[in-house]
């Protein structure tokens, strides 16, 4: 199908984008890899698309003050091939190849993926696993939202109707940082049936500060806190037994199958977390 008619404006600045969002039924267009698909299928029909691709200063990757800051318009392909991200935000580097396909990653943006908040998407779970911060600018100015407070529900975030997500920040990985990522999908590049993004700090053979963020198991990415505690005390079997998820059935798999697959992924990711960094 073809999109229903809409007006199109190119925002030249963040302020202009925020102001335009005040118009009726306005939506931001970043990479468009989810939005334009929904327009084509007429699942959404906004009155105005505000193209933010021309706004300067939103496409950078920087390492400063112990954090890695990723601009909202950083493309997935750019993140996938960034040496800085591979070194200082290795979980994001691990997740990138799982997102869509090469042609999709060339257009899709990190900010778009986070703001869209698909419950089976990779990046929101990575942000939850990393205790990331998300910057947004709205009519009242700039604010920072913690990842744990950002994902509210099914495609629902803490962003207000006139907020523009501008950047995400994750703690820069150090020598003791360990990360793990795995997902099961029917086909490479599809949204996950179940996925897991994880981070931890290694202390000798022990893992501290274990964060297990599952996706595809709930309306939003969720931490499995009992399993985290069990893994931190050293037992993968206990962690799998303690998996405190309650996945509902969906078109891809029953909740029971998802629960089982979550355990399979936890074993794979636990092995990655135990690996020493090269």
């Amino acid at each position, binding site marked *: 199908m073809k999109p229903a008619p809409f007006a199109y404006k190119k925002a030249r600045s963040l302020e202009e984008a925020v102001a335009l969002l005040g118009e009726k039924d306005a939506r931001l267009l970043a990479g468009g890899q989810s939005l334009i698909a929904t*327009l084509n299928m007429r699942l959404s029909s906004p009155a105005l698309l505000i193209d933010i691709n021309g706004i300067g200063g939103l496409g950078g990757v920087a390492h400063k003050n112990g954090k890695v800051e990723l601009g909202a318009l950083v493309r997935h392909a750019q993140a996938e091939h960034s040496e800085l991200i591979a070194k200082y935000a290795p979980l994001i580097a691990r997740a990138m*190849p799982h997102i869509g396909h090469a042609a999709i990653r060339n257009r899709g943006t990190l900010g778009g993926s986070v703001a869209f908040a698909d419950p089976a998407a990779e990046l929101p779970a990575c942000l939850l696993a990393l205790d990331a911060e998300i910057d947004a600018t709205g009519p009242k100015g700039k604010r920072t939202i913690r990842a744990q407070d950002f994902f509210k529900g099914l495609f629902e975030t803490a962003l207000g109707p006139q907020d523009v997500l501008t950047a995400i920040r994750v703690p820069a990985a150090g020598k003791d940082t360990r990360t793990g990522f795995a997902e099961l999908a029917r086909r490479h590049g599809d949204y996950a049936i179940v996925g897991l993004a994880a981070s931890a700090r290694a202390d000798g053979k022990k893992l501290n500060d274990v964060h297990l963020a599952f996706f595809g198991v709930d309306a939003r990415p969720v931490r499995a806190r009992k399993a985290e505690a069990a893994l931190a005390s050293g037992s993968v079997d206990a962690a799998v037994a303690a998996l405190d998820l309650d996945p509902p059935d969906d078109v891809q798999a029953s909740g029971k199958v998802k629960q089982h697959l979550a355990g399979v992924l936890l074993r794979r990711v636990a092995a990655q977390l135990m690996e020493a960094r090269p």
Partner: protein
Amino acid sequence: MTALDISLTVNGERVTERVEARNTLVDFLREELALTGSHVGCEHGVCGACTVRVNGEIVRGCLMLAVQCDGATVETIEGLSDSGEIADLQAAFEQRNALQCGFCTPGMIAAAQDLLKRGDVPSRDQIREHLSGNYCRCTGYHAIIDAVESVAQQRAKGRSP
């Protein structure tokens, strides 16, 4: 209805047109410029039949609006074919029966060339992964992987002294 004027380069030629905001890049190429080598399959980014190059990188022609290509350089399968850049891939697809109906072939070749132009010889797994976003509904993928692999090897041979 919003119409906007855009100027872009398509297959080396300067093009200026007035387009409706809701026109996707692939529809613009096919309907305004009569470049019908890019195919419209699923129209939601899954099948890869509309794969074209924008500013040197492959994209889904159905997931980009024509108005977003103002100032861009677009290359379609017609351009890649005329320049000779993919002549060996085209020959290999023919020799190895890597197509039947041919609907997926322009997108398949554009995606394959995107992988091969990096210069090294990819493994069969890497080829499969790179083409995972391109559907073929009749030939099956083995012959396609064979064709891409053979071109990768030929090109590597051509490069070695």
